[in-house]
């Protein structure tokens, strides 16, 4: 392992320099080295949110805070950033309004999950331009409370939003300033930007990735699947080299840096114009803290047959720019998957850019995902579909399916069949047959193969009924 530099960051109101293992997760550093015990370990896989903290960095001179699962974030990625834990939100002599509302509404019982909920909520308040109860509740999608079952937390959320929106932002003030005034955040938070500027930061050149087993970007899967190996052996952390903007327009395509997070992707105006319903789709990918760290490239190279983003990108005919040092090549995502967890990428290549072509004709896009639980769950089956019409005739269609094959699957024959056909019940029945021939699901914890076959059919019908709500299906499809 190469010698790493000292990590410097601000934790709550203190600047911290450490030579600790940069591959250890932030959770262990906070609890073990800093004795900040309010951040709890519940699952170590980003599925409970008890360890949620806020990670802030300067973007164009403005602080940008994101909620993050500290159990999946390597310490090295904290370099140059501001971390806020529950302790960092405490006021000296009173509860802040978020804390008070949780107490008043019975939003905490055993208390183990509580700090995580409060951190997610605080993160929401910091980012919301016009806070709403509905969105506040959504921002808690990465947190699990086993005691209250959440109704009391929803009540607390409503109370907080009512309070912080009671006095609309005095003009010109940032969210952070307002929250400090409302005593949601302690005063020191205002001084962080100046302090951060004073920290030493590494220069950010993308180092050569040779000889590194794992390239770590968001770490949201590597630190789940190989937590101990990652801490012991480490990987090449690249997220510190991320450059803005992460998404830009070039010719007839939208380009995304491989390090674009799912959250950045769904918030991008360029992407929203390309995929108008991206916000709705992305809500089904992981959770807020996961989306704040998980990257497009990570989802792609992970090659999970059930990757949500991959399913969507395949339908959109994305291509990848792979770079090995100075050499680069471009490959269609549809040709990238070779077998279970096998991809057309050498060890030294990284996914530098994802290119999404702009459509020549108007098209419709839909994404479907069925999982045991609607949110923060891995799909049993997911599917994306893009369709372009000329009257009642399909100019082209691209259908994908996840969870039904060894790789993320572009349903090539189904898509080809649909091209040029009239929209009719018969066409749909035929397409269903093609899908059944193309997929090869297996039974696992996410469902039996029979269920997945049935689901593959149902999500396809769901696409069709979303695009053509008035179409009546033939009896055998009901």
């Amino acid at each position, binding site marked *: 392992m190469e010698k790493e530099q000292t990590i410097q960051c601000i934790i709550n109101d203190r600047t911290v320099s450490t030579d600790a293992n940069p591959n250890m997760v932030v959770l262990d550093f906070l609890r073990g080295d800093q004795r900040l015990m309010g951040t709890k370990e519940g699952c170590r896989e980003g599925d409970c949110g008890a360890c949620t903290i806020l990670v802030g960095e300067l973007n164009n001179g403005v602080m940008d805070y994101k909620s993050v699962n500290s159990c999946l974030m390597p310490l090295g990625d904290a370099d140059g950033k501001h971390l806020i834990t529950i302790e960092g939100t405490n006021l000296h002599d009173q509860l802040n309004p978020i*804390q008070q509302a949780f107490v008043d509404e*019975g939003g905490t019982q055993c*208390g183990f999950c509580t*700090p995580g909920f409060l951190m997610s909520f605080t993160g929401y308040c910091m980012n919301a331009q016009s806070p709403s109860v509905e969105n506040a509740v959504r921002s808690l999608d990465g947190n699990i409370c086993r005691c209250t*079952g959440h109704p009391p937390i929803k009540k607390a959320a409503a109370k907080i939003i009512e309070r912080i929106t009671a006095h609309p932002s005095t003009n010109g003030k940032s969210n952070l300033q307002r929250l400090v005034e409302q005593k949601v955040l302690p005063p020191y938070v205002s001084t962080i930007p100046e302090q951060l500027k004073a920290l030493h930061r590494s220069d950010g050149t993308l180092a050569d990735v040779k000889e590194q087993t794992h390239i770590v970007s968001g770490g949201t899967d590597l630190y789940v699947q190989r937590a101990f190996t990652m801490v012991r052996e480490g990987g090449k952390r690249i997220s510190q080299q991320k450059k803005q903007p992460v998404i830009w327009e070039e010719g007839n395509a939208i380009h995304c840096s491989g390090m674009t997070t799912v959250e950045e992707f769904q918030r991008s105006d360029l992407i929203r114009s390309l995929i108008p319903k991206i916000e709705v789709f992305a809500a089904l990918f992981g959770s807020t803290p996961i989306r704040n760290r998980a990257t497009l490239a990570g989802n792609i190279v992970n090659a999970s047959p059930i990757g949500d983003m991959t399913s969507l990108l395949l339908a959109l005919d994305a291509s990848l720019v792979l770079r090995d040092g100075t050499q680069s090549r471009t490959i269609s995502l549809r040709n990238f998957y070779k077998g279970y967890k096998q991809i057309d990428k050498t060890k030294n290549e990284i996914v530098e850019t994802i290119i999404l072509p702009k459509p020549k004709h108007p098209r419709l896009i839909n994404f479907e995902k069925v999982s045991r*639980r609607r*949110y923060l769950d891995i799909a049993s089956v997911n599917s994306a579909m893009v369709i372009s019409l000329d009257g009642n005739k399909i100019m082209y269609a691209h259908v994908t399916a996840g969870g039904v094959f060894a790789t993320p699957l572009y349903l090539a024959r189904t898509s080809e069949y649909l091209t040029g056909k009239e929209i009719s019940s018969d066409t749909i029945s035929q397409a269903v047959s093609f899908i059944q021939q193309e997929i090869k699901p297996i039974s696992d914890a*996410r469902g039996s193969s*029979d269920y997945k076959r049935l689901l593959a059919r149902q999500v396809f019908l769901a696409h069709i009924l979303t695009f053509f709500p008035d179409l009546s299906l033939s009896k055998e499809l009901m």
Partner: protein
Amino acid sequence: MKNFDSEKHVRGESLFLDDIPIPEGTLHAHVCYSKIAHGTNLRIDTSEALKMNGVHAIFTAKDIPGENQIGNIVLDEELFGAHGVHFVGQPIAVVVADTPFNARYASEAIIVEVDKLPVITDPRVAQSKNELIVPPIKFLLGNTEQAWKECDVIVSGVAESGGQEHLYLETQCALAMPTEGGVKIISSTQSPTAVQRVTARVLDMPMHKIEVDVIRLGGGFGGKEDQATPWAAMAALAATKLHRPVKLVLHRQDDMRMTGKRHPYSSDFKIGLKKDGMIHAYEVSFYQNAGAACDLSPPVLSRSLFHCTNSYFIPNVSAVGYCCRTNLPPNTAFRGFGGPQGMFVIESAIAKAAEVMKIDRHVIQKKNLLNEGDEFPYGQKTEQCQTRTSWNALEKKISVDKVRSDIEKFNSSNQWKKKGFALMPICFGISFTNTMMNQASALVHIYTDGSVGISTAAIEMGQGVNMKIVRTAERVFSIPIDWIRIETTNTTRIANTSPTAASSGADLNGKATYFACVELLKRLKKLAAEELKQEDEAKIEMRNGVIFNSGKETELAWKKLITVAHQKRISLSEHHHYATPKIHFDVKTSKGHPFAYHVFGTALIQATVDCLRGIYEIDSVDAVHDFGMSLHPAVDLSQAEGGIMQGIGWMTLEEVVYNSEGKLLTDALSTYKVPDIQFAPKRVRVDFLENSENTFGPFNSKAIGEPPFMYGIGAFFAIREAMKAFRPDQEFQFKAPVTSERVLTSLYSKVAALEPSLQ
């Protein structure tokens, strides 16, 4: 109303076991467990593991100075597998190293081999091979044989309910420190005395050498009643052997693999009704999947029988329960303790009868609700019965007819989305059904500055028992609430405790606290009367820290009175033992009066099913619940809502899946899904039943922990009703949880198999 615990929780200042500063020189333990479900001739090779970095020792069965036995009811469970293994996840060894990481790496280097034996995971298979942990348990009322002849409608069927992972957010953990000749254990347990007793047995030490201390639990739900013990015993074994503090915190996945869960049940039912919908006879056989060892399975099974008729009066009942030994981790206590499993079957039976008779399920439910004085199959009769009052109160706040017609309207105008609703009454007995366990004690100290410290046997695990005990003392003493503090639960202060379980923590310990405080108050009033020269003590009153004489405020304040008491050498401490009066139960005849009282209530649950995708939402829960006179309404309401959601989770999302080799497939939060905030219904409205009193609870309050859980059963039937609206001619199984997979495959069970070759 104040809640001290909550105020610490929201600041991240509450101390859980893993947050306590560890003593100097603490070592860390990791448990090595079996990957095989059933095997004999166990061979363990630790030689490579012992050489690994940071390892101090590895302990197995042969290192135990006392008995390798952690069973409580039946002595059938080893701390470490000695000769064979009986389930995947059975502990075999504990590795002790300088860091948790090193202990874990070394654990992976231990070589474990067994000769494999056949694996049983199905309770019915176990029963057929006579693999029963205890003899069958039977409850009888009336004469079912005769009664069948008198019925107009008889239906029978099978109902199955699945396991449930506790998923306490804080995993199992313990920290053991050697003391002079003994050991002190800080444990995350609901049952400190069980930890003490079992550790004493394992270490071959008298109980007085073992001190167990509990601060608070990050959730328990029954999962830390019996199953917190082995980790404490292992840490204590290592600490006494190595003369070093030893900490053991289970990783989530290890916790899920090694610990038992709610018992899955498969049950046969037969129900007979008269034409008018009156239930006349009911027969039920419960096949309880107990797992590989007894644990608490027999009393859990008993409670299924106790609650096999839920809130209904049935004159002829015959119930039998089989406690079946399988090769799964020993299943254990979980909120409701077998009650939910019992109630699910009668509700299924009523649903099936309603379908056959073509009447609404809730019509049969309502007709058969218990009345005052009705006899339960175990001989006790209802007292202060609130089944009908709660049902009627619910109907008053929400019209069932309107719900029904709104849903019909919705269903006829929506092709793919269908709604359904279900009513769910509950009747749950409060007391440990093992009468002996219904005792508790409290130790109350008043310090010379007037502040009060209270120790009881109760464990705070989020249910708010500490606040209820504080409220009890506050109401007796009438002093400001922040002068009262609840101490940790410690076996040297409160001995021979019953576990905090059976919803009884606040009742038993609250009563003990009440009497201890009353005794102290008596002394103080006597003293105050002397000081104020009042001959009639009854004219002395405490009001918010000030002494009143004949209704008039005096100069004498609480703090001053305490100083005087100390100067006059009056004891400012009191220990009081409380035993629930009147209760008894004869296990031979299965008759008696096992419960101090019952908790009642009714809920109405509505759900929407997306019949295209097989997914669903729980739209609303409206309930009227019998809280008695609540000691802390905010705590009780949160308990009720949390219980309901956990019950809904059990019926819907939460599926524990083992493969045929006994390996748990849902062993992480990524595969085992509990309700999240967006699954919580848009409306959850729990109203307090008015005019309910209960002389057995402190200040007329009622137990809250378990009963609301069972409202969740309504979610299953609401979803089922919605499915029936989509497929009116189809029969659906009574199989919970009704996961989205079950919904979709049931809705499309008549669709030709989707095989590529057939297309």
